[in-house]
């Protein structure tokens, strides 16, 4: 039921400063080559098969927010190495590599912006940074973003993309699950909406904390979403996993998400939903 999803984007926005090193990208699902420019115009959804390609945090906010509206909040908080963690390489070396690759201190980008004119606070996790793993910085930035939303009185929209808690910060990473939940509490107390968008993949400690205590949970089509990873489950139960297991559509059927929404509809969906939840007057048609 989307009776008045009239807020289609007139034209998709280009990601600011995006480069196009290649002219086209091969769709991981249908293997079709798609011009990068067309991909951007379709919110990085394959125009042929509808596959939702993974986005980094910058691409995500470009898809979600009104062009030019984003004001970054995150970026001043940097990860450290509290455990002096070393496995096949020292944690700081891993971090440096991920920072160089993404141009960000850690796996999250937060700030404020507007969605079809509606002011929101946003946080987008960055799977490109160490699999979107949640350590102290991710927890802190998400907590600050939630607190900013509570203070500003704007709805909070978070896009999850994460393999779970970050091993390299040990139990400190685990505690971010509680920390973020504490920060989100300020939104619930003030009656400010919190919507999470679960993208591919969202697993582990992220699924078991801030991503799922949202007022409304939206999943992108075909995303892998769960607590335990499929491999761990298979090892434990030594049993074949059913077709579509832990995918968005499976979760909708099992009552876990409010809706599976095509990425190209996210802006209209959120504008319509948040407009009602914040009891704002209906926007003018075509606004």
């Amino acid at each position, binding site marked *: *039921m*989307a*009776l*008045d999803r009239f807020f289609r984007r007139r034209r998709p926005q280009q990601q600011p400063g995006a480069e196009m090193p290649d002219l086209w990208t091969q769709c991981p699902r249908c293997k079709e080559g798609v011009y990068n420019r067309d991909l951007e115009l379709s919110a990085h959804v394959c125009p042929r098969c509808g596959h939702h390609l993974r986005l980094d945090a910058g691409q995500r906010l470009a898809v979600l927010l009104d062009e030019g509206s984003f004001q970054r909040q995150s970026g001043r908080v940097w990860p450290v190495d509290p455990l002096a963690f070393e496995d096949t390489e020292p944690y700081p070396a891993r971090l440096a590599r991920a920072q160089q690759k993404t141009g960000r201190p850690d796996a999250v980008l937060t700030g404020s912006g507007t969605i079809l004119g509606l002011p929101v606070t946003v946080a987008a996790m960055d799977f490109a940074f160490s699999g979107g793993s949640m350590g102290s910085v991710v927890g802190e930035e998400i907590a600050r973003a939630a607190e900013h939303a509570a203070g500003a009185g704007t709805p909070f929209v978070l896009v999850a993309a994460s393999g779970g808690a970050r091993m390299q910060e040990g139990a400190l990473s685990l505690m971010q699950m509680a920390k973020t939940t504490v920060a989100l509490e300020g939104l*619930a107390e003030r*009656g400010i*909406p919190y919507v999470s968008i679960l993208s591919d993949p969202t697993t582990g400690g992220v699924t078991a904390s801030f991503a*799922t205590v949202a*007022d*409304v949970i939206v999943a992108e089509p075909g995303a892998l979403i769960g607590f335990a990873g499929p491999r761990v489950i298979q090892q434990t139960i030594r049993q074949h996993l059913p077709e579509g297991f832990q995918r968005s559509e499976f979760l*909708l*059927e*099992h*009552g*876990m*998400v*409010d*809706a599976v929404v095509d990425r190209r509809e996210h802006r209209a*969906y959120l504008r*319509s*939903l948040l*407009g*009602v*939840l*914040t*009891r*704002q*007057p*209906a926007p003018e048609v075509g606004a």
Partner: protein
Amino acid sequence: MSAPADTLRELEARLRDLEGTAQRTGQNLDAALAPLRAEVERLRGEGHARLTRWERVALARAPGRPTALDYVERLCTDFTELHGDRAYGDDPALIGGPARWGGVPVMLLMGQKGRDTKSKIRRRFGMSNPEGYRKAVRLMDLADRFGLPVVTLIDTPGAYPGIEAEERGQGWAIAESIQRMVRLRVPAVCVVIGEGGSGGALAIGVGNRVLVQENAWYSVISPEGAASIIWKDAAKAPEAAEALRLTAPDLLELGLVEEVVPEPLGGAHLDPDAAAAALGEAVSRHLAQLSALGPDELKAERSARFRALGSFREE
């Protein structure tokens, strides 16, 4: 139905033929047909006043009677259906989500029957499983959090009597939904728009105002169920319907509803737009009245309304 009803049916059919002719030929017959139309209307009114309780039940179940979503399409904007109980599943027989009702932000909860055979089966003919009531509880949590008035449209033969429903606590889920509704700190307006079957209906029926459409029924048990118990014969449902006093006028007389929402003559299915207009107006009016009350008052008023229901003598 009685003989005048047969006459009415025939006249209606003829009138439709003539209107078809007018449309096909482009000939304007409005003036020519006006007296016939008036007579049909008169007969409808006459027949309607004479309807037996069982005939009303038949109207509440009439093919083509508007379902909850038919009204939403006509009365609401920005409806976002929210799915799932976040624990087990999503029930397509009890649906809901935020919307604007005549422009006013509300949280909708609705019994939903299918509109074709496939969707009727999928929606279990409007009979909810526990997941439906648990979703209702979740949406009421959201309504309270965001200060959205709750509007419920009730249309269910009853909660689904299935093995799995019992395994997952059908009774518990209904009780929790009733309790959650008692606790609401926002206005709640409920309308029975078709069938109001027992606890499955009451689960979303604890409103500050409870309305009933003219041809809807609301009862502690379906006529068929009562007949099966009393006479061991479901075919005696017409007699049971009489005994149960389950029609809109009955409910108004018993003090169980605040208002009967009028339907077009002959039933809502004959003119869904007109039915929707009356429904929209009634709900909006009650929402406007309730908007003057604060959260504590709303809960207290609703509690007092239901605390007072019952008929007994005291010695």
